[in-house]
C-alpha cells in the first residue's frame, strides 16, 4: 500500500500519509491541519471547500491556469503530483492577499465559514490570464465587473449571511496581479504533468493509467470499474451514498480524450475536456456552437464545470443531465472506444433506460461529434428554481432549419420528462414540412406538451413539466419574432 503519492500544497510537497483510496482531497487537507477549506454540503453545491489547482491553460498551450475545484468531490489520489493552493496559501492575517483584503474590509465575511471557499474561487478569477479581454458566454446585466471580473466564477459558492452584495463589490474592486506575484508568474510555466498512480487498500483501488491503452485494459479486466474524470458525480456517490467502488479509473488527463477540433463536417469534443475548457476552447477557436454554448453557462456552476466533462454527463446517463438535450437537438454522435476498437453511435439511440446506455462496461466515450452544418434556429430552455447552480426540472433544446418559410428539419431534445433524455419525435414530425407560422407553433406545442412521461418530484410537478414543454415553442416563436430572426436561408 505504501504510496508514492505526493502533492504540493501551498508550495510545500506533502506525502499522502494515512489517506485511503476513497479519501477526498478536502478530508486530506483538513487532516494536514489546513482547515481553511470546509465541508458545507459534501456534494459540490456550496463551494466552502473550494481550492485552487494548477491546471493546463485551455487557451495558451503549455501554460498553467489556477482553477478552482470543489475539494470535497475529488479523491485526493487524483491529485498525485499536482499543485494546490488553499486560502492559507494565498495570505495570512498579517499579510493578506488582495482578494482577502477586499473581502475583509468590505464586509464580505460574516460568519466566515464560506469565506475561504469564496476567496479561492475569487482568486481563480483574479488570476484568469485573459481577464481584461472579456468574459466568455452570455451575461445578464451586472454580472461582469468594470475589472472584467466574471461573477459566474462565484456561481458555485453559497453564502447564507451576507446577501452577496459586499462579495460582489469585493470582486469588482480587484485590480490586476502585480508583476512579482508568484501565483501570477506560475501561469507562464507548464502545469504539473499527470502522474500515473496506483493506490490500493482494503476498500478498493484507484488507478490513473498512463495511457488510453492501459485504461482500456483496466476496464476490460475489471467490469465493475468506475471511470471518472472530474468526479462531480462520483464524489457525490462516495460522500452521500456511501459508494466504495472496488476500482476507480481516472481518465481526465488522457490526451486522446481531450481533443477539440472543427473540420468541414463536424466539431469534435473530447469526452474528458471539462465544460470550462470547452467553453474557453470554443471561444478562443472562434467557434460559435449553438445550444451547447447556451447550456454551458447554465450548467451547474463554474466550480463544477471546472471538473465536469461531457463524457461524465453522458456516461452517467442521468435523465436530468443538461448536455444531453442540447446534443440530441444537435444530432450528436458518440465515439465509443474499447480494447477491441472504436465504434460510433447516434446519441439518439444511446440511452436505453434509466441511467442505462448501450455503452458496454469495457467501453469509454472518447469524444462527441457534432455534425455540420449547424441548425439555423435554436433555443435552449432550462427550467429550474435558480439561474446559477441548479439542476433542471425540465430542459428543452430546440433546433430547426427553416427554408423559404418551411420547417425542413426539426430536432427537439428533452430532459427531465422521462427516465432518459429523449427526442420529441412526435412534435418533430408535426413541425417537419410545415410552414413556420404561429399556427404551426400552436399545433406543435400541443403535441410537445404531451411528450414524455413526466413525474412529480421536489423539483417540479408533472403538470408544470408538461406545461413547460407546451411553452417551449411559443417562447421560441416569440423570441425569434422579437429578434427578427432571419429564418430563410
Amino acid at each position, binding site marked *: 500500500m505504501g504510496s508514492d503519492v505526493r502533492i504540493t500544497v501551498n508550495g510545500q510537497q506533502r506525502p499522502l500519509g494515512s489517506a485511503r483510496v476513497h479519501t477526498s482531497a478536502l478530508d486530506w487537507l*483538513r487532516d494536514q*491541519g*489546513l*482547515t*481553511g477549506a*470546509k*465541508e*458545507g*454540503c*459534501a*456534494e459540490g453545491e456550496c463551494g*466552502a471547500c473550494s481550492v485552487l489547482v494548477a491546471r493546463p491553460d485551455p487557451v495558451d498551450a503549455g501554460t498553467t491556469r489556477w482553477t478552482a475545484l470543489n475539494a470535497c468531490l475529488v479523491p485526493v489520489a487524483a491529485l498525485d503530483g499536482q499543485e494546490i493552493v*488553499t*486560502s492559507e496559501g494565498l495570505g*495570512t*492575517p498579517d499579510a*493578506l492577499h488582495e*482578494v*482577502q*483584503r477586499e473581502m*475583509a474590509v*468590505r*464586509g*464580505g*465575511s*460574516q*460568519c*466566515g*465559514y*464560506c*469565506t*475561504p471557499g469564496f476567496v479561492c474561487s475569487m482568486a481563480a478569477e483574479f488570476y484568469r490570464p485573459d481577464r481584461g479581454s472579456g468574459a466568455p458566454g452570455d451575461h445578464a446585466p*451586472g454580472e461582469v465587473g468594470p475589472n472584467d471580473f466574471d461573477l459566474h466564477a*462565484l456561481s458555485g459558492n*453559497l*453564502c*447564507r*449571511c*451576507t*446577501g*452577496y*452584495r459586499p462579495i*460582489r463589490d469585493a470582486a469588482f474592486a480587484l485590480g490586476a496581479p502585480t508583476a512579482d506575484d508568484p501565483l501570477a508568474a506560475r501561469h507562464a510555466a507548464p502545469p504539473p504533468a499527470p502522474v500515473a498512480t496506483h493506490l490500493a487498500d482494503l476498500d478498493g483501488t484507484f488507478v490513473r493509467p498512463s495511457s488510453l491503452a492501459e485504461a482500456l485494459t483496466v476496464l476490460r479486466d475489471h467490469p465493475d470499474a468506475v471511470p471518472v474524470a472530474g468526479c462531480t458525480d462520483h464524489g457525490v456517490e462516495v*460522500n*452521500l451514498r456511501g459508494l466504495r467502488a472496488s476500482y476507480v479509473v481516472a481518465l481526465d488527463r488522457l490526451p486522446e480524450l481531450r481533443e477539440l477540433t472543427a473540420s468541414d463536417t463536424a466539431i469534435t469534443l473530447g469526452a474528458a475536456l471539462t465544460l470550462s475548457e470547452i467553453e474557453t476552447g470554443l471561444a478562443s477557436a472562434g467557434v460559435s456552437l449553438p445550444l451547447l454554448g447556451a447550456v454551458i453557462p447554465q450548467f451547474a456552476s463554474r466550480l463544477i464545470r471546472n471538473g465536469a466533462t461531457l463524457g461524465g454527463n453522458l456516461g452517467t446517463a442521468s435523465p436530468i443531465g443538461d448536455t444531453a438535450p442540447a446534443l440530441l437537438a444537435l444530432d450528436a454522435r458518440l465515439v465509443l472506444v474499447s480494447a477491441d476498437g472504436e465504434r460510433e453511435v447516434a446519441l439518439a439511440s444511446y440511452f436505453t433506460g434509466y441511467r442505462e446506455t448501450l455503452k458496454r462496461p469495457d467501453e469509454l466515450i472518447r469524444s462527441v461529434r457534432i455534425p455540420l452544418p449547424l441548425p439555423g434556429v435554436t433555443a435552449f430552455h432550462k*427550467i429550474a*428554481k*435558480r*439561474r*446559477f447552480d441548479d*439542476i433542471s426540472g425540465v430542459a428543452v433544446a430546440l433546433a430547426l432549419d427553416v427554408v423559404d418559410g418551411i420547417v425542413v428539419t426539426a430536432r427537439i431534445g428533452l430532459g427531465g420528462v422521462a427516465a432518459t433524455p429523449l427526442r420529441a419525435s412526435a412534435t418533430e414530425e408535426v413541425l417537419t414540412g410545415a410552414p413556420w407560422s404561429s399556427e404551426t407553433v400552436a399545433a406543435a406545442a400541443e403535441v410537445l406538451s404531451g411528450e414524455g412521461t413526466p413525474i412529480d418530484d*421536489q423539483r*417540479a*410537478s408533472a403538470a*408544470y413539466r408538461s*406545461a*413547460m414543454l407546451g*411553452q417551449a415553442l411559443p*417562447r421560441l416563436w*416569440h423570441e425569434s419574432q422579437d429578434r427578427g430572426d432571419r429564418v430563410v436561408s
Partner: protein
Amino acid sequence: MTSLSSRPERDVSVGLEVPHESATLHVTGAALYTDDLVQRTHGVLHAHPVCSPHAHARVTGLRPEPAYDVAGVVRVLTGADVPGVNDAGVKHDEPLFPDEVMFHGHAVCWVLGETLEAARRGAAAVEVDYEPLPAIVTVAEAIAAESFQGGQPTVVRGDVEAALAGAAHVFSGGIDFAGQEHFYLETHCSLALVDEAGQVFVQSSTQHPTETQEIVAHVLGLDSHEVTVQCLRMGGGFGGKEMQPHGFAAIAALGSRLTGRPVRVRLSRQQDMTMSGKRHGFDAHWRVGFDDAGLLVALDATLTSDGGWSLDLSEPVLARALCHVDNAYWLPDVRINGRVVRTHKTSQTAFRGFGGPQGMLVIEDILGRCAPLLGIEARELRRRNFYADDQETPYGQPVRHASRITAAWDQLVDSADIAAREAEVASYNASHEHTKRGLALTPVKFGISFNFTAFNQAGALVHVYKDGSVLINHGGTEMGQGLHTKMIQVAATALGVPLARVRLAPTRTDKVPNTSATAASSGADLNGAAVKDACDQITARLREVDAGRALPWEEVVREAYFSRVQLWAAGFYKTAGLHWDSSLMRGHPFKYFAYGVAAAEMEVDGFTGAYRTRRVDIVHDVGDSLSPLVDLGQIEGGFVQGAGWLTLEDLRWDASSGLARGRLSTQAASTYKLPSFSEMPEVFNVSLLSEAHEDGVVYGSKAVGEPPLMLAFAVREALREACAAFAPQPGFSVDLASPATPEAVFWAVRAARSCAPAPVTEGAPGVEPDQPSSGAPALHPHSEQVASRAPDNPVTGHRDRT
C-alpha cells in the same frame, strides 16, 4: 437621554465603520470553528447516528452487537448508557434515545469509531426492529386528527363579530405556507472531553451555551458546575442552534464520559437537514373587515403552526407570530387564535424572526389579495392603515414612534423614485405581452425583547490588565452577526481606549454563567449593556484614582493597581419595564419596536414563471448604529434570507402512503435551493433611518438581527403585482403560494391570464376560521409559575423564548 444610551463626546468607537473583528481570520481560513479543533485534539472518536427509516414506529428490538464486528468501532451508545435523564430538551418530551421514533431520520442510537468511516459502517451494522405506526405528515392531517400539542393562545381585543357584521367589506380566505431550513454553512458540531476530575468540557456550535450546559448536565446526571461549554464562533446559527445543539452535545459528552476519550459529533449536511428542526410552516384562515375608505376594522384569524414531533420552541414561536399579525397596521377589533399541531417531522424551532415573519405574512397576504377587490392600490392601502403614535397593539402595548413607519415609508417613496418607476412599470407592462414587472413596498414593525421577561438579562466580565490592555467576556455568542465586533466597540467607548486595546475571549459558561440564548435580536442590547455596566464600574474607580489629573490610560491603570484598586468587574443588565401575561396574551413584552420599509421591483417571465429581482431599496431603523458595516450586513443578509424563504426555498416532505412517507425529500443542497449570486438584487440600495436614536438602549442603538428578514415581503408582493399584470383587466386578486417558486408564479400567471375566480371569498359568512374549544389549554402557564417560585427541577420551565 439615559446614561445607557448617551454617547461620550470623545474617544467614541461605537458608530465607527469597522470590519468584523475576525475578518482577517475568516478570509485566510485561520478562524477556528468547532470541527477545526478535532485536528488539534489527540485521540478523537467520531460519532455516527443510527437513523430511523420510518416516520413513526415503535422500536421493538435493538442489537448493537454486530457493530462491534466492524473494525474501528469502539462503542455503541444506547439509552441504557444514560446515567441521568434520557432527554435532550427542557420540556421532557424529547428522549435522547427514543423507544418510539417520531420522524424519518430520528436517531435511535449512536456509534463511536476511531474514524468517521468506521462509525458509519458500524451504524449500518446495528440491527433495529421497528413496528411501524401511523404517521401524520401534513398540517391538514393533523387538524383532522386533532393532533395538537401545547397551549392554544388567543389575542383578543374588542368585539370582532360585531365589527365584522358592521364592516362595509368582508373578505375571507386562507393560506398554507412553508417553513425554512436554516442552512447555516456549518452544520451542528460538538467536541467533548472529560478531564482528570471528571469535569466535562464541551466545545459546541451553540447559540445557547448555558442551556447546552444544562442539558449535558442532566443527561450525565451532573451539576452545572461540572460542565463547561465553550463556543468559539458559529458558521451561522439563525436560530437553528438555539435549542437544537443540546442533544448532539449530550451525545458527545456521554461518549466521552463512557470512553474517556474526546468525542466529536458533527452532522453531515444530509443528517443536519434530516434531523434538526426548521422554521415552522403555518396554515392560516381569516376573515377581515374594511370600511369604505379601506381602513381595517376587524380581523378574525386562526394560525396553526406545524410543530413537528415535539414542542421545542413552538409555543413562544406561536406567541410571537400572534403578536406580529398586526405588523405595522392598526386593527381595531381583533381575535387571533393560535395552536400547534404535532406531526411526525423534525421538531420545528427558532429561525430568525421567530414566528414574527409567519404572523406578518398573514396580514401582508391579506392586504395584497384584498387591495384589488377594494379597488385601492396596495401601496396606498398599506399606508392608510399604519399605526398612529401610541395606538395600542392587539396585546395592549402602545406603539411608540409609530410615526417612524410613515417617515421611513415616505423617505423611501422619495429616494427610490417610486412614483416615476410605477409609471415606468405600467408602460413596460403595456408593451410586453410575455414579461411583466411589479413594484411593491412593505413595512416592518418588529418587537424587540424576549416575550418571556426573565430572559431579558445578561452578564459580562471585563478585565483590565496592568499594562492597560482589556479583555472582555460576555454571555452572547458570535454566529456572524457581528456581536463581538459591537461588544469591542462598546467596551472601547465605555473605557475611552482605542479599539486595539480591547480583546474579546470566546463565550464560556465558566466565565459568564446563566446566560440567555443569543437570540431575539437581543444580543447587542443585553450584552452591550452588561459590558458597559462592567466598564462603567471600572471607569468610576479609575476616575477616583485619576482625581482630575487626566492621566493617560496606561498610567492611571498602573497607578490603580499599585493603589490596590480592583481592575476588573462583572457587569449585569436587565431590561426594565417589561411585563407579559401569556395566559391572557396581554402586556408590554417589548422594550421597543424596530422599523423598516422595503421596495422591490420584480420581473416575471410569463412563459416559465421565472423571475429576476431588478431593484431593491430599503430604509431601516437601527437606532444610532453601533457598527454601520455590521448593521448594513445584517440588513442585506436578512433581506436576502427572507427572500429565499418566500421564493426559492421549498421544503418538501413525502406525504405519500409509500415507504418513504414522512421523509424530507429536499434533504441536500442539490434539492433545497437557497439564494445564490443570481438572486442578489441587481440594484440594491440600503440606507439607515436618520434621527432614530433609541433612548434607554446601549448607546442609542437598536437590535438588527431579525427585523430585516421581514423586509423581503416586498419581493413577494412585487411578484403578486407582476402576476396581476398578466390579467386582461386591472383589479385581479392574485393568490400566490409561499414559497413563490417559479412554478408557483407560473400557475399564478396562468390564473391571472384566465381570470380564474379569486380564492378570496367576499361577504359574510365566508370561510370561518376554527375557534378553540372551551377546554383548550392556555399557553405555557407552567413556565411562569416556575419563574415566580423555586423550581423543583432546575431544568424545566425555562422555555419561553421570544
